[in-house]
């Protein structure tokens, strides 16, 4: 038994320590940021904070939560995440169900599949997409943030590959009992597909929550900006023209910036541990075929 040999034991200890350090490295930057956000602004600006807060205070959070720009952006992001994910789940799962049928049952299946896959391979690009939104009159609306990405072909493929692993007997039993496709889909397929649906929802939610670029190009009013775009404008672009002077004055404070970054990442930190146990099965079953 190799487990009991001395060299393997030494390797094992070394390995465990190394991997623990590596995994902590994935967390430390975020942790450091949290500590900065909890510190008094003078030591934080002087760069004294490392792994504990100095002069612990929640002032930065208090200031962030009275900032109207921040709050309206937060609300826009919540709306787009809930609406966008909900709508996308409905549209993508029903399409994936139909496409998971064999050609014998659904003759047009392959035509539809190619119709969708082509959009994964080739696209008009940034400018034609922008002009389309402009012509449709969706500029500066929530719909501009939701509709263009509603159909995610990659997710449809994940879902349909999973649906195909559902035993045919279940489906046949449902049909013999008199169910139609819609009923079979809702009563049989959805309940057994929880892992993949959880995975896909996580992808969609994270996608909406993190998406900032569409906000930059399609949204003009400060109060309609999603949170990610708001954060992008203040942290990265430092383009304050869309924002209140009051917000701009606050920005010089490192603690406030840190608290905003942390709050914007918080929903993901909260949702992710619950859904993460599904996504390994979800992705694996969906993507890898033996």
């Amino acid at each position, binding site marked *: 038994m190799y487990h009991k040999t001395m060299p393997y034991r030494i390797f094992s200890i070394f390995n465990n320590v190394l991997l623990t350090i590596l995994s902590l490295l994935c967390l430390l*930057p975020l942790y*450091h940021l949290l500590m900065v956000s909890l510190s008094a602004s003078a030591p934080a600006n002087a760069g004294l904070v490392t792994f504990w807060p100095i002069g612990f205070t929640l002032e930065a959070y208090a200031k962030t939560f009275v900032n109207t720009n921040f709050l309206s952006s937060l609300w826009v992001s919540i709306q787009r995440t809930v609406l966008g994910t909900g709508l996308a789940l409905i*549209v993508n799962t029903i*399409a994936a169900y139909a496409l998971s049928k064999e050609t014998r049952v659904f003759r047009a299946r392959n035509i539809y599949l190619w119709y969708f896959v082509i959009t994964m391979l080739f696209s008009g690009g940034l400018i034609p997409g922008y002009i389309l939104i402009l012509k449709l009159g969706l500029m500066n609306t929530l719909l501009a943030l939701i509709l263009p990405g509603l159909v995610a072909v990659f997710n449809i493929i994940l879902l349909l590959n999973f649906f195909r692993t559902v035993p045919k007997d279940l489906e046949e039993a449902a049909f013999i009992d008199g169910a139609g496709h819609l009923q079979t889909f809702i009563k049989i397929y959805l309940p057994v597909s929880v892992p993949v649906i959880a995975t896909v929802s996580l992808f969609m939610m994270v996608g909406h929550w*993190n998406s900032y670029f569409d906000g930059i190009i399609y949204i003009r009013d400060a109060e309609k900006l999603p949170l990610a775009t708001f954060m992008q404008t203040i*942290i990265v672009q430092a383009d304050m023209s869309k924002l209140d002077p009051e917000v701009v004055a606050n920005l010089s404070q490192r603690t406030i910036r840190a608290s905003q*970054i942390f709050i914007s990442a918080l929903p993901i930190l909260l949702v992710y541990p619950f859904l993460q146990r599904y996504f390994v099965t979800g992705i694996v079953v969906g993507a890898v075929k033996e």
Partner: protein
Amino acid sequence: MEANRVPQADIGSKPNRKTKKRYKQPWILHLMVLPAAIMVFIFSYIPMSGILMAFQDYKPALGFFDSEWVGLKHFRYMWENDYFLQITWNTLFFACSKIIMNLIIPFVFALLLNEVRKIALKRTIQTLVYLPHFLSWVTLSGILIDILAQTGIINQFLVSVFGIKPIFFLGDGSWFRFTIIASDVWKEFGFNTIIFLAALSGINPALYEAAEVDGAGRWKQTMYITIPALIPIGIVIATLALGNVLNANFDQIFNLYSPLIYQQGDIIDTFVYREGLLSGQFSFATAVNLFKSVISLILIVISYRLAYRFAGYRIF
């Protein structure tokens, strides 16, 4: 007797005609695909026709039908432009480095993680390393800009331990390249191991037992069982990555670069954004985008063919 036969035929192993009909019902299946098909038509196919702009001098005021046709003017301009060659090179450099690093590091990481025997520790490590994948580049840029600043925590550490001058990670061209690749690997290595871990869990334990009986130690088992089992999926990932060599991750670079390092940091996508939307050169930007899309399409088709040929990989 007569009456008995009919129900028997009904119970038989084949569904009766009514059930079969219900099972087929193609119209309802069409109906189920319809919403997705319509959305894709509007938001993917209609913009594809906008590609024609690349052959025009598109003026928003004149619109699509009245703008002047100029043939290949924008493409010629693109080829005669030294800066365009520079950004194509940058794009290839970033994409290739990331593809290689994101293959090797997750591969090694998966092998090492496979040796962790304590299940609780293994789970914790996995949960932590997947996390950065789910944070956006906006959030991460905020963090990176903060910790990589000349007065940031990383430079403080380097200066106090090694006594060197603070490094300008995001403002010096060659350090910028290093930072982009390192931070991308940092963000994605954990998530990229998932696929290798899946392949590892598919290895038949009997192989290890047999090797054990034959006297192979863990090193030999890894060399002759584990690594050969991971090679095929590694090949699939590498081949599929070929289709992505013109994508160097817009989000990351867009959020970390600055005019200071355009020379070393600008990529095709960031260039298209600046030329197209900021400078209003709609036609030129579309031409650049079209060039990129066509090359990518060719590469994707080749890479999928190869992946199917060598590893039997299909997407659906």
